[in-house]
C-alpha cells in the first residue's frame, strides 16, 4: 500500500498537500531576489506561526517581502490585515493574496493557509486546496527545527 509520510509535531503543525508538517519551505529563503515562503517551526511555549516570504504576482512582478509576519518591502502596496488567530494580505485590488489562521486545540495548534502564490517566473507555487494548500516546485516539506539562515 502506498503512503505519504511526514513529520508531525505534538505542538504545532501546518497542513500542506493534505499532510501535517511542523514547518516547510518553498523556494530558497537565502536567495536575494527569488520567490520563497517559509512557514517556520513553532516551538512549545509559542502559539504564533512565523511566516517569511518574498512574493510575486501572476506576471512575475515583485509584490512584497514578509519577515516574521511583518511586511518589509511592499512594492505591490498590498494591505495587511490582522485577523483573529492570524492575518491576511491582499493585493492592491483587494483580492486575497495570502491568508493565515491558526486553530487552537486543548493541547496544540494547527495553522491553515490559503492563497495562490506565484514565483518570479509567474509559475504557481502554492494554491488553496481542500483542507489546506497544494505546493509545487522546489520545497522542503518537513523541517524539524526553526530555520537558520546559511
Amino acid at each position, binding site marked *: *500500500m502506498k503512503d505519504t*509520510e*511526514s513529520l508531525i509535531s*505534538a505542538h504545532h503543525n501546518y497542513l500542506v498537500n493534505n499532510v501535517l508538517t511542523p514547518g516547510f519551505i518553498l523556494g530558497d529563503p537565502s536567495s536575494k531576489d527569488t520567490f520563497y515562503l517559509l512557514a517556520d517551526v513553532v516551538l512549545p511555549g509559542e502559539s504564533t506561526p512565523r511566516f517569511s516570504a518574498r512574493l510575486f504576482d501572476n506576471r512575475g512582478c515583485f509584490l512584497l517581502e514578509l519577515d516574521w509576519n511583518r511586511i518589509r518591502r511592499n512594492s505591490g502596496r498590498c494591505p495587511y490585515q490582522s485577523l483573529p488567530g492570524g492575518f491576511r494580505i491582499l493585493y492592491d485590488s483587494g483580492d486575497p493574496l495570502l491568508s493565515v489562521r491558526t486553530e487552537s486545540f486543548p493541547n496544540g495548534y494547527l495553522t491553515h493557509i490559503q492563497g495562490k502564490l506565484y514565483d518570479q517566473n509567474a509559475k504557481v507555487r502554492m494554491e488553496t486546496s481542500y483542507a489546506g494548500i497544494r505546493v509545487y516546485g522546489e520545497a522542503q516539506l518537513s523541517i524539524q527545527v526553526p530555520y537558520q539562515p546559511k
Partner: protein
Amino acid sequence: MKKKRNRNSAQGVWIFGDYRNYFQDRVTLQLISKGRDLAQTLETEVAVLVLGEGIHQYAMEYVAHGADVIIAVNDSRLKEYQVETYTTVVAEIVESYQPEILLGGATSFGRELFPRLAKRLNTGLSADCVALEIDPDSGLLIQTTPAFGGEMLADVVTPNHRPQMATVHPGIFKERPHDSSILGRILYPEIDIRPDERIQLVRSRPHRTGKTNLEGADIVVAGGRGMGPKEEFDMLYELAELLGGEVGATRPAIRAGWADEERLLGQTGKTVKPKLLLSLGTSGALQYTAGIQGAETIIAVNRDPNAPIFKMADLALEGDARSIIAALLEELRKRL
C-alpha cells in the same frame, strides 16, 4: 483456506485511536503508554491508527503522549463511524503493514470493531484484558483476561497468527504525561474507501445512557439545575469517570435534557447509598434528598448559602459549582 500470515514479518505495536468519546479516548492514551513498554521489549515502534475526518488534533495528542507513528486516514467518508466500513479499512491497512500487535480499548467501539477485525484478519482476540506482557522466551504477547465468569485469570497467547489482538478495559494502564516537544512521524496510506452501501446513516447523536449502576455505586456525582447548561453539566460525566463513580441528576436537570431519566435521584427516581456523594448545583428539595439520605458522606456545592442541601451535607461549599468542578477536573487530570 485462510492465509496464515508470516509472523516473522510482522512488526510494530499498534493501537486503535478511539477518539470519539473523550472518556474512551483516555484508554487510547493509556494503551500508548503500555504499547511503548511492549514496543521497547520487542525493539519496535508504537503506532496509533486514526480514522475519521478532522482527525489531526487527535493525531497530535497521541504523539504528545508517546506515539512514534500515526497512521492517519483523514476522509469525509469516515466522519461517521460505521462498523463495516471501519472494519474493512482497518483490515486492509493491517494486512498491508502487518503490525505485530493491535490493541484497542474495551469500549463500545472496541467491543464492536475488534471481534469483526479479528474474524476478518483470521487471528485471535482476547477481550477485556487486565494485563499485557511480552513473554521473554517466545516474544509472544501474553494477554491476561478474566475467565469463567471472572473466577480466574487466563494467560492467552496467539502463537501463529498476526496481529496479536487484545482489548483492554479503561483504567488498567496509566497514560504518560503530555509532552509538547515530541516530534513523530505520520503516514497517510492511500486506500480506496468503499462505504458499506447496505447501510445508510441517517443521523447520529451522542447518547449518554447505557447501563448505570447508581444503586450500587460507591461514588455518586449528582448534578442539579446549578450545573447547567448542558455543556457544563457534561463535566460531571468526566468527573464520575475519573472518580470511578456514576452520575445522578435531579428532576430539573433531567427535564432540561442534561441526563437520562435513568439517572434521576429521589422519590420518583433512584435511591442511592454511596460512600461518597457529591451534590453539585442542587438546592436540596425533599423530593431529591429522599433518594440520597443513605449516603455515608455528602459534599454539597451551591452558590446559595441558605440552600437546604447544606443542612444534610457533611461538607458544604458555597460557590459556583461549575467553576469548582472545572478546577477539580483540572487537578484530577494532572494526577492520572
